[in-house]
């Protein structure tokens, strides 16, 4: 990699001067994820999923002969950059629609820009509640925690003898905090008391103090709406402290990395998610094999959701006749998306309109049935 600030400057300047029109035979799609900074551990797998899907779609001739071109931009997980990138993609690159950004907080910043410009903003990893309240141009393919958690909890209650629970979660992160809120509500609905709630911060690696306190509170199970990164440390340290309880994870806990790192400590962990690596469907096994081949690492839920999202778009584009008038094309795509249904790496997928918010129409959430999995002998298997 050579450092080319001068070229960069020139590119920017020329971009300021020349407006770009999309050549025939290309469908320009914006893709913005956090590729640098701490959020890149989620942004990069998503980005990879998209790249893989783009290759596969274009190799099969694209969309009725038109190739999908991804205009890729890094948004660093920062709200101002997310807005800047969105504006660049919408007004300068003149893309048909935009995928990303990675974090819910960034979508809260960038989504309104796309909605006001009547361009589809499509999140694949935003699980916070309220995302689709932004407006009718905001879509997401990531099921909300509110859809996943109650199902997980019910399955876990059936499987284990649960009368009281302990919780540990990260309280400085939108993803894990949303997970916690939903778990709390679901537990109230099931009349299960919480005997102890512990929190940690981003970047923590030592959870022994919190776990010791949880152990003393003597719950039947520990609920951990965490990301797999912290999750594996928590599991390892819990076992070291002699906690033999099962853990229940939220959406995003089901990374193959969890088992790879925590090994036997992960046994008995229950997670709910539309995706898991053990799903034997043809689409999923093909996706996992192709991803490993291309990137040399295991995919996770985020990459699967990115991969599927491009196929969702491809399906919608099959029904849209692009006229070359950007405004009309963007609107036509927006109108075609809600009816799309596919059967992808994350299973059957469809959209569901979000209820109106303060009298204003909402966007579209994912309508997917989550499955509940348990770790047995070092593998995620369906919990029956």
């Amino acid at each position, binding site marked *: 990699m050579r450092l080319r600030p001068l070229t*960069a400057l020139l590119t920017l300047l020329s971009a300021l001067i020349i407006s770009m029109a999309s050549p025939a035979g290309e469908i320009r799609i914006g893709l913005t994820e956090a590729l640098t900074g701490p959020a890149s551990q989620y942004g990069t797998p998503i980005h990879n999923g998209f790249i893989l899907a783009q290759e596969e779609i274009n190799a099969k001739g694209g969309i009725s002969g038109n190739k999908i071109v991804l205009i890729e931009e890094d948004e660093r997980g920062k*709200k101002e950059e997310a807005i800047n990138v969105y504006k660049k993609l919408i007004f300068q690159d003149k893309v048909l629609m935009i995928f990303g950004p990675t974090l819910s907080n960034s979508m809260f910043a960038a989504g309104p820009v796309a909605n006001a410009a009547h361009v589809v903003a499509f999140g694949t990893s935003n699980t916070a509640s309220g995302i689709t309240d932004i407006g009718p141009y905001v879509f997401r393919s990531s099921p909300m925690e509110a859809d996943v958690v109650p199902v997980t909890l019910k399955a876990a209650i059936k499987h284990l003898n649960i009368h009281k629970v302990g919780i540990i979660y990260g309280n*400085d992160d939108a993803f894990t905090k949303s997970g916690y809120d939903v778990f709390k509500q679901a537990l109230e609905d099931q009349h299960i008391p919480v005997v102890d709630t512990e929190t940690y911060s981003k970047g923590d690696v030592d959870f022994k103090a919190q776990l010791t306190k949880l152990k003393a509170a003597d719950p039947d199970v520990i609920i951990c709406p965490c990301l797999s990164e912290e999750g594996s440390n928590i599991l390892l340290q819990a076992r070291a402290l002699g906690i033999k309880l099962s853990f229940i994870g939220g959406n995003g806990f089901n990374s193959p990395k969890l088992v790879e790192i925590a090994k036997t400590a992960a046994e008995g962990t229950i997670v709910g998610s539309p995706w898991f690596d053990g799903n034997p469907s043809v689409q999923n096994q093909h996706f996992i094999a192709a991803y490993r081949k291309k990137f040399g690492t295991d995919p996770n839920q985020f990459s699967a959701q990115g991969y599927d999202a491009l196929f969702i778009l491809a399906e919608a584009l099959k029904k849209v006749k692009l006229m070359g008038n950007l405004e009309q094309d963007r609107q036509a795509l927006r109108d075609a998306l809600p009816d799309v249904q596919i059967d992808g790496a994350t299973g059957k997928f469809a959209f569901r309109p979000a209820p109106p918010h303060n009298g204003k129409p909402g966007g579209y959430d994912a309508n997917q049935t989550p499955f509940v999995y348990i770790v047995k002998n070092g593998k995620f298997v369906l919990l029956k």
Partner: protein
Amino acid sequence: MDWSSWWSTYSTLVLSIGVYGLMAISIYITLSCGLLSLANAAFMGIGSYVSAVATMQFELPFSLALLLGTLTPSVVALIIGVPVLRLSGVYLAMATLGFGEVVRVVALNLDITGGPLGLNGIPLLTEWWHVLLALILVLILLNALRHSKIGRAFEAIREDETAARLMGIATHHIKLLAFVLGAAIAGLAGGLNAHYTFTLSPGNFGFENAVDILTMAVLGGIQGLIGPLLGGAIITLLPELLRSLEEFRMAANGVILIAVVLFLPQGIWDPRRFRRWLKKRATHVDA
């Protein structure tokens, strides 16, 4: 590309240049009287939250919300300034960093700030001329201040605090004034920023931002008001200019910081260096 589509693309960037110019000026004020305070990101956060809550929950007019966003951090600065400003140098820097973390953790745990999810759906109220007006007002005020007795007192304290006190300057009051003024400007910048970025979360005002703001002032130069403005603009634009470096673009950011400290110790905008250059050229012409 015509004007309106240029503006649609870059309006946020332009507003950010103005807002971060204000932030760089807010830290310049404390630096110009020899105080290394890193609390300005926290003051910006307080200003953002207060003004966003004012427009969203109390539906106050924007002007009033901005006023509250300016006043609240000033009051906080007044309260913590009295004990904190007894410290100097690195100790002051560390204490103000600690204060910033406390503000962040409080924002994470309060209900009215929305916790880690922050405040979302903040109305888009900031227009370009709001930012411009704020900048002009602040610049006029500070320019007047610089050439007043107080401005000279700032300089005297920066050069030698003990001597300044012996000369009869009420150093403690003057330092407190600089601290509060910096907080007010940071709060104003925060209020403006909140109303064009739609969302606020505690992560926006942490250590990293405190450091960014300091960098702007030092990069631009703290010999006058132009330096911080320039530094704010450069640091805001840099990530956009370096986009083509992809995953290494932050590395370039780091290299630039080091290079400026090593080779341009007075910052980019250094009137004395410019004068030296001019003189050199003049002598060339004479010869």
